[in-house]
């Protein structure tokens, strides 16, 4: 009963006004044999104090390890100001800004967010967010299929170096519409996608080509060549990008001759905690041409009746609440609060700060790579350029090496062997700016020890 404010007197008065004898009577339109029995399997309620004790114990259970896993979720320093402001009641407990006049805070913030994402990706249009990077990619695929006037196909082409969990998500979502997703194999010694790998698909009708920069292996793709190839084939080009990396790497809007058409990705690195995987947010940006295919909310700047600037939901005719079955997507609730945090994060860091974060992450990964060069039983899977992740090949089974590192409270990376058996025993390792030299040394030590354990076993 903790949050129901009614006193006995209130209840009496209310029943009296309504003209019923009991609250139960208000449910008399429900067939009585359907009425729920006591929810026996739900435990009794706890006070906040007891709840906090339980949740603290559980948080404690999962805490304490040094984490080198990336694979789509990245540990970065989050300025204290970010969530202090994001969790102000006015941001956190408001709803979708349907009443624009009473929601200018959220509306202006999203406009600023759109501007920042547009600046980072080099594409003019951003929406107010999608659920996450993976489902965002599915929306991008649907957008491309609707928006590619040169192609009537219901097929898209995806680089095999795109995050495997993203590809799975895309399939779960788009296959309901009979869309098929064909895969381009990557070069297993470079761990990226040379244009030559696309030769087989030359001249075929695909609505879009999907590439990732950096790709799942942390490796850089030759995005210019790939983009130009896609465009030459009449495909739209969708770039899956890490927003932090965009302070270092070229913006999708500048790829190749004319730029990618859609950029999409996971916004989590921009000030969102790892937090078991969410809430994060998917960002999506596109060219002017595609704006009417954009799913989700878009905020526009306009003026009020006094001529004063203000912000409002715009192009709502794309959305389900207006267009129903003809909407560009069924998305309604998005990831507003995470967007709020990201907007504050980007405002604090600015381009200079973000590029320091990107460079430091890159430099840390390079440093770890070089330290690992000396460790027996470990090989760097590729010599190609990487951002802040890289694939290590181990001469012992990845699963047991990682388990053994975990016992030493070092989470050594993500086991990619299940997704890419062709890479044999391989793990994906990530370093960001939060890792100190001491942390890297601990990693090298733990990996060495774990490999020795495996030896002994």
């Amino acid at each position, binding site marked *: 009963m903790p949050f129901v404010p009614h006193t006995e007197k209130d209840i009496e008065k209310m029943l009296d006004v309504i003209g019923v004898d009991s609250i139960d009577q208000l*449910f008399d339109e429900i067939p009585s044999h359907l009425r729920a029995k006591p929810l026996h399997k739900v435990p009794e309620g706890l006070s906040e104090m007891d709840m906090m004790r339980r949740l603290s114990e559980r948080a404690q259970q999962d*805490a304490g390890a040094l984490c080198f896993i990336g694979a789509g979720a990245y540990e970065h320093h989050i300025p204290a100001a970010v969530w202090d402001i994001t969790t102000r009641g006015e941001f956190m407990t408001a709803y979708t800004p349907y009443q624009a006049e009473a929601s200018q805070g959220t509306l202006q913030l999203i406009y600023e967010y759109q501007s920042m994402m547009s600046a980072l990706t080099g594409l003019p249009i951003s929406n*107010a967010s999608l659920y996450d990077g993976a489902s965002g990619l599915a929306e991008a695929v649907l957008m491309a299929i609707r928006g590619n006037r040169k192609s009537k196909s219901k097929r898209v082409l995806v680089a095999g170096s795109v995050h495997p969990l993203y590809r799975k998500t895309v399939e779960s979502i788009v296959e309901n519409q009979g869309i098929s997703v064909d895969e381009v194999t990557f070069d297993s010694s470079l761990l990226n996608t040379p244009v030559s790998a696309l030769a087989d698909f030359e001249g075929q009708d695909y609505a879009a080509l999907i590439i990732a920069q950096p790709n799942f292996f942390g490796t850089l793709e030759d995005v210019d060549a790939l983009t130009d190839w896609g465009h030459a084939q009449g495909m739209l080009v969708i770039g899956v990008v890490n927003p932090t990396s965009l302070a270092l790497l*070229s913006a999708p809007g500048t790829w190749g001759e004319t730029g990618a058409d859609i950029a999409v990705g996971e916004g989590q690195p921009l000030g969102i905690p790892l937090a078991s995987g969410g809430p994060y947010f998917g960002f999506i940006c596109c060219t002017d041409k595609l704006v009417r295919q954009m799913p989700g909310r878009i905020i526009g700047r306009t003026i009020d009746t006094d001529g004063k600037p203000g912000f409002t939901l715009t192009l709502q005719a794309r959305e389900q609440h207006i267009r129903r*079955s003809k909407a560009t997507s069924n998305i309604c609730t998005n990831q507003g609060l995470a967007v709020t945090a990201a907007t504050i994060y980007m405002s604090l860091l600015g381009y200079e700060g973000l590029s320091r974060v990107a460079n430091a992450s890159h430099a840390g990964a390079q440093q770890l790579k070089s330290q690992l060069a000396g460790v027996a039983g470990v090989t760097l899977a590729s010599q190609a350029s990487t951002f802040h992740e890289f694939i290590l090949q181990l001469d012992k089974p990845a699963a047991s090496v990682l388990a053994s590192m975990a016992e030493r409270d070092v989470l050594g990376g993500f086991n990619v062997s299940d997704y890419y058996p062709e890479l044999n025993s391989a793990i994906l390792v990530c370093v960001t700016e939060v890792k100190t030299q001491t942390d890297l040394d601990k990693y090298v030590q733990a990996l060495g020890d774990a490999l020795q354990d495996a030896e002994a076993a």
Partner: protein
Amino acid sequence: MLIFEKSSEGRYAKAQAPQTKAAVSGIPDHLLRKEMAELPEASELQVVRHFTNLSRKNFAIDTQFYPLGSCTMKYNPRGAHRAASLPGHLSRHPLAPESHSQGYLSCVYELQDILKEVTGMAGVSLTPMAGAQGELAGVAMIKAYHEARGDTERQEIIVPEAAHGTNPATAVMCGFKVKEIPVLPDGDVDLDALKDVVGPQTAGIMMTNPSTCGVFERQIEEISKTVHDAGGLLYYDGANLNAILGKVRPGDMGFDVLHMNLHKTFATPHGGGGPGSGPVAVGERLLPFLPTPIVGKTKDDSSFRWLDENDLPNTIGRLSAFMGNAGIILRAYVYAVLLGRDGLHRVGEFSTLNANYMAKLMADAGFKLAYPERRATHEFIVTLNEQAKTLGVTAMDFAKRLLDYGYHAPTTYFPLLVPECFLIEPTETESIDELEGFVEAMIAIQKEAEENADLVTHAPYTQPVKRLDDVKAARELDVAYSSAS
């Protein structure tokens, strides 16, 4: 003023980035960014002040009564937020090994069980990230179910016209055709119309109960029988679950699959648009198709583990890179733990009590209820059609004027079938004082409308801006700042 307009070249929050800029090695020049991105350039104080002040331009549950129908704007317990923000919860990587995840997994597992119990279903997957994604999962399961049986003719989803826009949009996203059926003047579905459209081509029906008309669908058992007899399945849109929590369970009403909006019924914050969480629950028939991941136990019952496509080979797959909105799931779990069995029962009771009380006060004050003969559920509809016709004061005008009185407007113009309507949902966490205050404001506005319609049609006056030019917004699209323009 935009944060960009407060920018000055070279400013940033210097405490927040590495103190030196590390060198980049081994990246070919053509892959590097050439021009800086136009992000804000501001000091830490400027940023804190800017966004603090922006926040102050919002209405929110924490500041105002916010009776937005269909949205369940109830109190979001601060304790849930605190618990989910414990450092150990925030630092857990989504791909951390199970050895380092037992704390989190146990919470998910327990919530799955609680949701099964409150919905009366056989299985739950928490992964969908909002109601609409839950719908997608649910309808995709219906599709997978029919396909698994080789029943590939079922290409239609039936939707009552009062349904939320996400319902038809979802059906289409899943490759179905949508058949809308009308609603009767008493708020119940037109059963004859249903019987007309149902058939071997019917994959299923999507409905809410209580419906978006704010009334309980009394013919639910007959609808269920009709659709089931035709071989279709029943989808329950759980957006209105708050009304019946602990009073009647969708599973007992005959639904095969449903989603819940944890951000509504389980009180997680709406965040100015999101995030939400839209778990799906299913009856026995759809169990094999649940989206992954789900949390199960190890064989020896000693610890928790992830179930994936190896455990559920017929799963519709995954809907996000990781586990959906994990932190929202945690908050919903905390909410369930705080309320417990008795508290959950009372959610339906008191949300219904509040709505019926308000409806009665409004009716007594002369406002027209859309379904005056019916019990209200957790929400109810008022139509201001009369006012629009005779006074030229529309529901939107009332809505805007309410802002001046310090109340967030109810949902306007939804459901579409009731003209000039307000869908009013007070929720169980509001006190009688707020309910009465709102009704008094409506009465005052009615009086203003009668005496000086202009006053109302030009409202609001007390907000950061007056009414905005939506046409200009769409026509002269300005969706991103650029210093050049």
